[in-house]
C-alpha cells in the first residue's frame, strides 16, 4: 500500500514536467515570440517596440535557457503580471477563485444529489417505460448545446419572466440571488450525462451476485438499495467527484461571462479577448496541476476504499 502511494507520488514528477513542457512548447515553439509580440502590440508596431517586448519577456534568450526559466517560474508559482491590467497574476487568481467557487460548488453538489437520486429511482424501475424514457431524456439533454441552455435560460427566466436577476454579482450573502439562475442552468445542462453515468454505476452494482443474495435473504428493496448498492456504488461516485473538483475551482467560462460573475472563467475569457498570454498560461498551468493532484487524491482514495484494488 505505501509502496503504491510512493510510486503514485513519483509518477507526479514526469506528469508535472510534461505539463510544463507542453505549455512551454505551446507558447515558444508552436507560436514564436515575434508572433505574440505582434498580437500584443498590434500590426503597426515598430521593429524597436517588438524588440523591446521580446527583451522584457525574455524571448531573446536561447530556447533551452528559456525553458528552465519558464520551469522555475511555473514551479514557484511566479506567473508575473497581466499584460493588460498589469496586476500580479497570483492576486488575480486568488480574487477570481471565490466567485467561481461560490457558483460552482453549490451547483455541482446540487446536480450530484439530483442526478444520483434520479439514477437510483430509474434503477429501481429498470427496463420499464419510466426508465427507458429517462434514458432518452438524458440523450436529448446531452444534445442541446450548453450555450443554448444559457442564452434561453437567461432570456426566459431572467429577462422575460423576471424570476431572477439577469446578471450581476456582489460580495457577501446577498450573492445568493445572482447565483440561483446560473446554478440551475448548470444543473440542467449537466444532468443528462450525469444521470446516465450514475445509472450505469448503480445498474452495475444491481447485477452483482451479492445483490441477488441479499434479495434471496428477503431484505427489503430499500435496505438493499441504500445499504448495499449505494455503499458499493460510492467508490466510482467518489472518484468522479474528486476528479471533478479542479473544474469547480476553474469556474465556468460561459456561465460567468453571461451572468457577470467575476470568477476565473470570466478572467480567462477576458484574457483571450485581450491577447493576455501570461494569464492564459497561468490558468492553463494551475488547472493542470490541480487536475493532476485531484487524480492523485482520487487514486489513493480509491485504493483506500476498495480492497480489491491491486497495487500494480
Amino acid at each position, binding site marked *: 500500500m505505501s509502496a503504491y502511494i510512493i510510486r503514485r507520488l513519483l509518477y507526479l514528477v514526469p506528469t508535472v514536467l*510534461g505539463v510544463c513542457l507542453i505549455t512551454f512548447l505551446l507558447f515558444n515553439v508552436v507560436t514564436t515570440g515575434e508572433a505574440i509580440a505582434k498580437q500584443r502590440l498590434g500590426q503597426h508596431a515598430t521593429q524597436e517596440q517588438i524588440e523591446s517586448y521580446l527583451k522584457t519577456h525574455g524571448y531573446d534568450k536561447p530556447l533551452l535557457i528559456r525553458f528552465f526559466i519558464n520551469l522555475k517560474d511555473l514551479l514557484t508559482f511566479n506567473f508575473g503580471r497581466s499584460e493588460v491590467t498589469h496586476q500580479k497574476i497570483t492576486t488575480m487568481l486568488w480574487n477570481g477563485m471565490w466567485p467561481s467557487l461560490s457558483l460552482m460548488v453549490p451547483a455541482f453538489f446540487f446536480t450530484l444529489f439530483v442526478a444520483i437520486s434520479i439514477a437510483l429511482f430509474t434503477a429501481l424501475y429498470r427496463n420499464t417505460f419510466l426508465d427507458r424514457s429517462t434514458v432518452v431524456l438524458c440523450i436529448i439533454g446531452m*444534445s442541446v448545446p450548453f450555450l443554448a441552455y444559457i*442564452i434561453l435560460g437567461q432570456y426566459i427566466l431572467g429577462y422575460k419572466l423576471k424570476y431572477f436577476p439577469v446578471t450581476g454579482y456582489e460580495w457577501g450573502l446577498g450573492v445568493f440571488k445572482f447565483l440561483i439562475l446560473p446554478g440551475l442552468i448548470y444543473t440542467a445542462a449537466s444532468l443528462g450525462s450525469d444521470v446516465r*453515468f450514475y445509472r450505469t454505476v448503480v445498474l452495475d452494482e444491481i447485477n452483482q451476485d451479492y445483490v441477488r443474495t441479499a434479495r434471496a435473504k428477503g431484505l427489503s428493496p430499500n435496505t438493499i438499495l441504500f445499504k448495499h448498492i449505494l455503499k458499493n456504488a460510492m467508490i466510482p461516485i467518489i472518484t468522479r467527484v474528486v476528479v471533478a473538483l479542479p473544474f469547480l475551482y476553474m469556474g465556468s467560462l460561459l456561465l460567468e461571462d453571461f451572468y457577470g460573475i467575476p470568477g476565473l472563467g470570466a478572467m480567462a475569457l477576458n484574457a483571450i479577448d485581450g491577447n493576455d498570454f501570461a494569464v492564459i498560461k497561468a490558468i492553463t498551468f494551475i488547472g493542470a496541476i490541480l487536475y493532476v493532484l485531484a487524480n492523485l487524491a482520487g487514486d489513493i482514495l480509491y485504493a483506500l476504499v476498495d480492497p480489491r484494488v491491486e497495487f500494480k
Partner: protein
Amino acid sequence: MNMEPGLQNPTMETSQEQPARSLWSDALHRLKKNRLAVFSFFIILIYLIVAVLCGAGLLATNYDEQSYKIDEKGNISLNSYSPPSFKNPLGTDIQGRDVLSRVLQGSWISLRVALTMSAIYIFIAVLLGAFAGYFGGFIDDIIQWLYQTLASIPGLLMLIALTFVLGKGLTNVAVALGLVGWVGLCRLMRAEYLKHKARDYVLAAKAQGAGPFRIMFKHIFPNTFHIVIISFSLGFVHAIMGEVVLTFVGLGAKAHEPSWGRIISEARAELAREPAVWWPLLSATVAMFIVCLAFNILGDALRDSLDPKLKE
C-alpha cells in the same frame, strides 16, 4: 460457435456456396432491429447530403445575399430581422440574409470541422495506441506519459490555448479539437492492442512470418475497428459542440461565416432587442440539436450492437 455433434462432419452438408456473413453484417443485422437507430441513421444521411450539396454550391447559395425592403415613403433599406415569412421561412438576420440558407450552410461548416477533427484525432489515437499496446516497454511508457500529461491539462483551456497560438479561425479550431481529442480513443486502442497481441491468432500470424506493421494494421486493426466507428460517431457531437463554444469565445468562425456557433453567439444581442429576434437562435439550436441527437443515438446503438462490453 456451434459445437453440436451433428455438425462435426469434415465437410458441411450444404453444397452450394453461401454468401459470407462477416461479424459486421451480423452487427448490422442487430442494428437494424433498433428502429430509433435506423431513424437516426437516415437523419444523419440527410444531414450529410444537405451539407455536401451546400459545400458544392448547389443548395442555399443565397446565404450571403443581403435583401432589401422598401417602406411606405419609398426608402430602400436592409431587410433586417424580418420574422419568418413565406419568402424567408426562418426569417432574416441583421443584414437581411436568409436564416434558413445560413443554417443549412452551417451543416457544411460543421461537417468540415468534424471531419478535419476526426481525421486528426483518429490518426493519432490509432497510431499511438497501436504502438503503445503492441510494442509495450519504453515506447509504451513514452506514449502513456504523453497522453497522461495531455489529459491533465483541462480540455477547454488546452483547446483555447492551442487555438490561441495556432491563430483564430475554423480550420484551426478543427485542428485544435483533433490535437486535443485523441486521448480517450488512444487509451481504448492501447488496451485493445494489449489484449489482442497475446491472442493466438496474432502468434499464428507471427509464426507465418508477418512483420509487426502487418500484424498491427492488417490483423489486429480490423478487430478494433468498431471502437473507431463508435468513437467517430460520438466524436461528431464533440466537434459540433466544440465549434460553438470556441466560436463564442471568439476563436472560431469569423463574422461573415454562417457557422452554427456564429449564429448562436450573435443571438445574445438579438434576444435583447425589442421585439426579441428569436428565430436565428432557435433555427441554429434546433438544427444542431437534431444532428447531435441523431449522432448520440446512433453512437449508443453502435456501441450496443458492436461491442456490448464497452457500455459504460
